[in-house]
Structure formats: C-alpha cells, structure tokens
C-alpha cells in the first residue's frame, strides 16, 4: 500500500462549491465556441475534481509526486478549468480555447502546462498509464498514476490489452476510473451493447481490485480510492450521468459535443445555481 499520509482530505461542501464553479466556467466558455464536449465534461466533473483536490498528494512547492492522465481526452474541459483554478493554466489560455492564437483545443495536448499526455483517440491512455506506473516502479519513486477512461473507450481492444498488462505486472500504483455514463453517440450502451455489462466483474476477472460508486458523490469517490486494499491496480467504475447538472443535457447524446444557445445557456446557469443552493 502506498503512503497515504500526505493525501488531502475530502471536504464535501468545498468539493460541491468547486464543482459548481467548474461547471459554470465550462458553461461560460461554451458561449465562445460552437462545440466543446460539455456533456462529457459534466459527466466526470466530480471524479476529476476529487483526483486533483482529494487524491493527488501535494508537496510544499505545489507540485505532486502523482500523475493524472486524462485518457478520455474529449472530457478535457474539466481538466482545463481545474488547471486554471490551480494556476497551472491562465485565464487567457482558457479565453483562447480553440482559437487560432490559443494553445488549448478539444483534446489535451502534451507540452501544454499540466497535460501529461496527448489523448483524444480512445484506447491509448491506459497503456500509457501502465508505462508511467512501470517507470515509477523502476525508479523506486512512489508516484501514483491516476487516469479517467470513458465507458465507450472500454470497448477498444487496446484498453483490454492494458487492463491485462496492469494486473499481470502488478501495477499497484495505478488507479483508473471509468466514467460510466452509459452513453455513446448512437445511444445507451446498455441497449446497443448489452454484453458490455457487468463492467465490475470484467475488471475483477482480469485481476483488478474494483469498486462501483456514484461518480457524482465526491466523498464516495474519495473513500473508495483511499480505502482500497492495494497490491493490485485499482478500478473505480463510476456510475455517472452524461451532462450532469443541466436537465436538458442529461442523457441526451447531442450534448456530447454541442454548445448551448444563449437561451439554453441562461436555463443551464439557473439550474446549476439552483441545484447547488
């Protein structure tokens, strides 16, 4: 088991406040561009927030021995706004999102501050995370690698290669989340590919320690990870709602990518405020 002593606490109220702020910031940015994967970002808001604010350890200089790799690259809007709040990315960076003179696009690009790997094509992240975990082990450093996969990404054969590698190589310093919102472009995965489920059993069968939690319950996510037995890679199957927080976005596939109109924006902003109050 890794040293947990330097880990932050999970303050539920603070997490709720941050997540509201992040969703609102993403909503604001949505008005600058035609599309930004808003539903995908809202789906994993609490997970990514918990990784950065609850799970990753911080040294006094603000750096972390741990690594976060956003395997579901299309969800990176939440990563960007978290990195902005942490001062890693600037407000100008976010203002220039997807603009010709900016450096942030719809998928994370390695080389940008706080971005540990380029993703966007699905099924790449978990193998890279395994490589990072092996490097930490080879160097006798104790960094933990955190990664978030989309559930659609778990259909990629390459993801299953990596699932097999992580447990076969005993990567106990790898913690992965599946953002299991059950939605893909063509509908509910449970309807289009029912054999996809049960997910927990599959990861467990491959030798991972696995739990299923409510992916919008920050404390549950935090406690699931911090109470893991260890010795094996850890998988959190996080049950989530695509577009979480905005009624007309929730579980409606078009909001995978679309930006709201000004009228839709106003409704979304009001709903987010109301839910938080």
């Amino acid at each position, binding site marked *: 088991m890794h040293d947990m002593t330097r880990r932050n606490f999970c303050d539920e109220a603070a997490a709720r406040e941050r997540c509201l702020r992040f969703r609102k910031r993403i909503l604001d940015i949505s008005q600058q561009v035609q599309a930004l994967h808003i539903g995908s970002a809202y789906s994993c808001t609490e997970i990514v927030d918990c990784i950065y604010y609850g799970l990753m350890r911080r040294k006094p200089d603000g750096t972390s021995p741990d690594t976060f790799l956003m395997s579901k690259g299309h969800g990176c809007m939440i990563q960007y706004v978290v990195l902005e709040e942490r001062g890693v990315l600037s407000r100008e960076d976010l203002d220039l999102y997807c603009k010709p003179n900016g450096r942030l696009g719809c998928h994370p690009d*390695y*080389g940008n501050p706080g971005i*540990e*790997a*380029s993703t*966007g*094509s699905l*099924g*790449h992240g*978990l*193998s*890279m*995370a*395994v*490589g*990072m*975990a*092996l*490097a*930490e*082990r*080879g*160097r006798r450093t104790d960094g933990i690698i955190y990664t978030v996969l989309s559930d659609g990404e778990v259909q990629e*054969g*390459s993801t299953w*290669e*990596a699932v*097999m*590698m992580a447990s076969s*190589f005993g990567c106990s310093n790898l913690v992965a989340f599946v953002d299991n919102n059950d939605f893909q472009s063509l509908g509910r995965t449970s309807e289009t590919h029912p054999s996809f489920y049960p997910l927990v059993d599959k990861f467990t069968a491959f030798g991972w320690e696995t739990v299923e939690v409510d992916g919008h319950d920050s404390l549950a996510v935090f406690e699931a990870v911090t109470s893991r037995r260890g010795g094996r890679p850890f998988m959190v199957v996080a049950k989530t709602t695509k577009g979480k927080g905005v009624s007309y976005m929730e579980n409606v596939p078009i909001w995978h990518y679309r930006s709201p109109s000004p009228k839709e924006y106003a409704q979304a902003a009001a709903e987010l405020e109301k839910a938080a109050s």
Partner: protein
Amino acid sequence: MRNTFSEALYKAATANPDVYIVVADISPAGSMGKFRDQYPERFINVGVAEQSMIGICAGLALKGCQPFAYTIATFTLYRPFEMVRDDLCYQNLPVTVVGMGAGVIYSTLGGTHHTQEDIAIAGALPNMQIIAPCDPAECTEATLYCAQQRKGPIYLRLGKAGEPNFTDKAAVDPWQFGKLRYIKRGADVCILSYGIIMQKAMQLAEKFEAQGKSVSVVSCHTLKPLDIAGIEAALHRHKHVIVIEEHAPQGGLASRTKQVAWDTRAQCRLDTFTLQDAFIHNYGSHDELLAAHGLELGAIAARVGAGAAP
C-alpha cells in the same frame, strides 16, 4: 543482426538505468536473455499485445525513460500504427521502434510477415526518424545511437541473422546519424543502398570493378532525415548511379533519389531496383523471394551493364 542488436542494447542498458525493452512475445535471441536475467524490471514482455507495447513505451518515455519496442517489423509498426503515430510521433518521444526481420526476410511465412512498405509508412510520420543498418557493425552503432538520443522516435529497421560485415574494417567513412556513409569511394559508378540487401550492392560493385570501373558503395542507413546534400553530391560526382533497396518503389530511397535528381538537375544515368508494388504469394528462400521481384544479382548486373562475370 538481431544478436548484435541485443548485445548493443545490453551494453546500453548496463550504462543507463533508464533503458527499457518492451517486447511482444518474441524469443530472447542472443544477449536479450542476459538483459532479461540481469534487468528484469526493465525487460517487459507484453505478450501478443502490440498496441499496449507501444503505449507502455510512450508512458515510460513520458516519465523520462529510454524505451525500445521490439518484435517482428510488421508487428511493431503496422499492427499498432495509430499508437506509433499518436503516442510516439505526435508527442515526439524518444522511443525506438525496432522492426526485426524487415523486408521479405521471413520468406516462407508469407505476406503477413513481410514489410515491403515500412519506410514509406514510417517516413510519412512527422517527427519519425528512420535508420536501417546494412550490417551487424552498423547495427551496433545505430543501436547505441538510439539508446542515447532524445530528439524523438526512431524506426530501427533490422535484418535477422547471419549477415556479413562490410563496414567493420575497411569502410571509408565512420557511421554518423543522418549522413551517407561511403563504404567504398570511386569515380565512375555509385551504388546507393541500405539494409541487408547491401550484400548485392557489394557483389555488383565487384562486377563493375572486374570491368575496370571505379565504384562507390554507399550505405544510406539514415532514411529519415535523408542526407539530401549527400545524395546530391553522389548524383553529381558519378556518371552512373544505381539504387538497390528491399522496399516498394514508392516512398523509399529510389523515389527520394529520383526526386533529388530532378530537383538538382542531375545529369548521371540513374537506375533503381526495388521490390514491386505487389504482394508476394510464392515461397522459398529470402533470395528467391527477392528474385521474384527482380532483385537478383545477375538480372541487375545485366540491366546496368555489369553483366560480365568477374
């Protein structure tokens, strides 16, 4: 050549604790066994999972390591192509993708095991560098280079076993990444080649020399970035230039040399010999497969006017 590679890699790994090898279920030839026994944490066997092999190499490199991905060329480059492109080239990571047994060396295993278009494919990728040593001695130099360079990904195209050495004793030039290497320097004819088909280039040179001609033989081991100035000089300093390569006609040394010849208004005679733009469905030895596509010494010699036996 694979044993030479293994020995060089073992040396590099002994000197540098960040050197890793990630293999996809390939038998540990030569010193690879020594590597596995002495540095088990840095010898990673993914099994038959080449996409993960490349992804793991990328993850290691993102943490500052110097990994090599290693299996038969079709399976290091073709099978995980998108991982090579996105994880290695797009992120520009110093990972060496080793294509063992490239070309049609696996002659009896059929087209699934042939890499006839790998230079074109790897060469199309931004940031990718390509090295194809012509003999075991060059393989050592190339491997040691790959183990310490930090510029970006490299496709290292290797032969298999039993290749003769041409460059270990009498080569005119030393091996230098990105530069043509004259093994022999002459005035009349220049033969440009790379990889283990260099054997035919050397034999062809002997035939010309028997006719009293002065022949250059050049190892174009670095296919990307190609030494354009070196190719230009070869085209302009010889009356007759011949390219011999074990690769499809498009995207390899032959087409690049023709491009340089046109761009620089070269006046020499230029003959190129390549594999054809066709799969090979017949079997036999490596030489017999090359001959099926016209890469046979007698046929080449006849075409270029070196037909008389030495």
